[in-house]
């Protein structure tokens, strides 16, 4: 009799605890980001998420709820973020295409809930006094690329578009900062890199850019997205919606041309110079490359990425992009913020759609 009472009481308690946990907000949002600032500093550049971080927008949003935002900047980027997701150490993260696809193909329960960038630019940098002039000259050379990240996918596409493959070069796996140091010390003959670091090296006289992906972004441009842990998303849909709302607002601010200077200044907290960011974005349409909208081009970019990643044998299982992308948070945010027409939408082939012919994502 006594036993039974105890059992029932325990059950009731457990139920209450579980139910409570379910309803209660998390105490912390564990936010990941691939890469760190110079020397490991906890700021980055190149995205509206980086701006939101620098401006503390998410922290402000959740301050009154007593929810902390715990940022982790992964020096080892995407591959390390996948491991963190697998070990349930991360709730949400920005992630480049190849790593996100590898994680999904490996069975991670993730969802893509927001676009954070398309048409990403990859550069090939050589030491400034190097005789290397073109991609063809890379044959047999020691070239750094960051395996398992969007850089490797982009590099393979670039090489392929120029009649080469990764087998033609002697590739060395290095994270972004290590590769920059190795180029400076000439331990490597060239490096594939993304973002402003390449321009900073050029500014410093260390490196010379022999290839820029700006010309052929449709072939070689990479994408990134906001990836959320499936369980976190299921248990905290309101929190996820609020995160997306904040980030969409940040995207609006970031892609407003009058804020360009301020945006670049906020990115410079990462340690990469303002001018490097400026040159990186020179001639780029921020509205297009930093759009948070999940449009046909975003989907098409990811589908192409899955196709290529598989073709280059970086994954062995398939990934269904349409099931993977969960567009409702982005849609709600655009709707509630009245930003549905703020960004041009692009068709799968990358051409802009008429603003009047808005296609619901």
């Amino acid at each position: 009799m006594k036993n039974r009472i105890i059992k029932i009481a325990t059950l009731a308690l457990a139920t209450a605890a579980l139910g409570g946990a379910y309803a209660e907000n998390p105490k912390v949002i564990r936010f990941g980001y691939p890469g760190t600032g110079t020397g490991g500093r906890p700021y980055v550049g190149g995205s509206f998420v980086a701006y939101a971080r620098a401006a503390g927008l998410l922290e402000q949003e959740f301050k009154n709820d007593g929810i902390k935002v715990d940022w982790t900047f992964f020096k080892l980027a995407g591959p390390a973020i996948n491991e963190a997701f697998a070990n349930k150490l991360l709730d949400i993260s920005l992630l480049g295409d190849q790593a996100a696809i590898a994680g999904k193909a490996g069975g991670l329960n993730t969802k893509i809930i927001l676009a954070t960038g398309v048409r990403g630019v990859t550069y090939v940098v050589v030491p400034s006094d190097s005789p290397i002039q073109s991609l063809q000259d890379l044959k047999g050379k020691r070239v750094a690329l960051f395996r398992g990240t969007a850089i490797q996918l982009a590099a393979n596409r670039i090489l392929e578009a120029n009649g080469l493959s990764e087998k033609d070069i002697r590739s060395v796996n290095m994270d972004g900062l290590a590769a920059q140091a190795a180029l400076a010390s000439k331990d490597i003959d060239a490096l594939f890199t993304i973002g402003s670091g390449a321009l900073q090296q050029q500014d410093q006289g260390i490196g010379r850019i022999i290839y820029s992906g700006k010309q052929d972004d449709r072939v070689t441009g990479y994408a990134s997205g906001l990836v959320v842990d499936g369980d976190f998303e299921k248990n905290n849909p309101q929190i996820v919606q609020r995160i997306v709302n904040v980030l969409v607002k940040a995207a609006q601010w970031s892609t407003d041309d009058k804020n360009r200077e301020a945006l670049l200044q906020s990115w410079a907290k990462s340690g990469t110079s303002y001018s490097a960011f400026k040159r990186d974005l020179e001639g780029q349409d921020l509205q297009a490359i930093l759009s948070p909208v999940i449009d046909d081009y975003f989907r098409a970019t990811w589908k192409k990425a899955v196709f290529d990643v598989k073709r280059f044998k970086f994954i062995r299982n398939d990934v269904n992009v349409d099931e993977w992308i969960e567009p409702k948070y982005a849609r709600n945010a655009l709707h509630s913020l009245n930003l549905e027409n703020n960004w041009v939408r692009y068709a799968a082939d990358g051409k802009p759609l008429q603003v009047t012919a808005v296609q619901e994502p």
Partner: protein
Amino acid sequence: MSKPALSARGPAARGFAARPFATQRLAARRFAGRALSAMILPAALLLLWQIASTRGWTPRQILPPPKIVWASFLDLASSGELLTHIKASLLRVAISFLIGSGAGLVLGLGMGLSRRVEDLFGVAFHAVNQVPTLGWLPVMIVVVGLNDTLSYILIAQAVFVSVAINTQRGLRQTPERLVEVARVFRLTRAQLLRKVILPSAAPQIFTGLRFGLANGWVSLVVVELLISSEGLGYLMSWGRQAFQLDLVLVAILVVGVIGLAMDAGLARLEGLFSRWQTEKRFA
């Protein structure tokens, strides 16, 4: 000369006559027993691994279940990819091992046999050894650069250190009582070396070679993680980068098996050189 009567009747002699056969059978049984007990731990680990993955103690992306790893192994093996990696690693190790063990033997012999050589190199050598092989990596990267030479140097160094130390130690440990025997029979220095010192040091030298090989194999993996685009170390690093931890496990298992096989090979070679020693070990 009259035949001694006791050759066949002493208790000791009787004992000996019965011995070789009994010893062989016993040794065979012991060997089987040992092989069996050697399997207990790996089998237990395999079981633990299986349980851990079915019970979900670790995410299956981090520790893929044995079945998946086995499938990946077959996959890699049948595509020929695994063989390419194995070949690349073996070649790297073989060349480095030859260089490292050759140099290690020379220095070890020198330091073990000549006080002057020991005085000349000993302090520097032992000072250098205070730093683990892989501790030299950052310095070596700067000096040599990130290239194949670096891999050969690092692996060879790992072998070299172990072989040199053990060779010197083995030579120094020659029992004085056996050196006295050589003096009684007025052996020359060369004879002393060939008949007494080297055989006496052989087990220790082989220990050095085996440890050297094991160290070299470890360095190989580290070096390949860093600079190579083929080889088992590369496969590990790639598996991790590509979030295919099954590849990492396949590479780990292959490295383990090859390491064991090479060690067993050296043990056999050692057996050829010092039969008396190996027989005793199994007896």
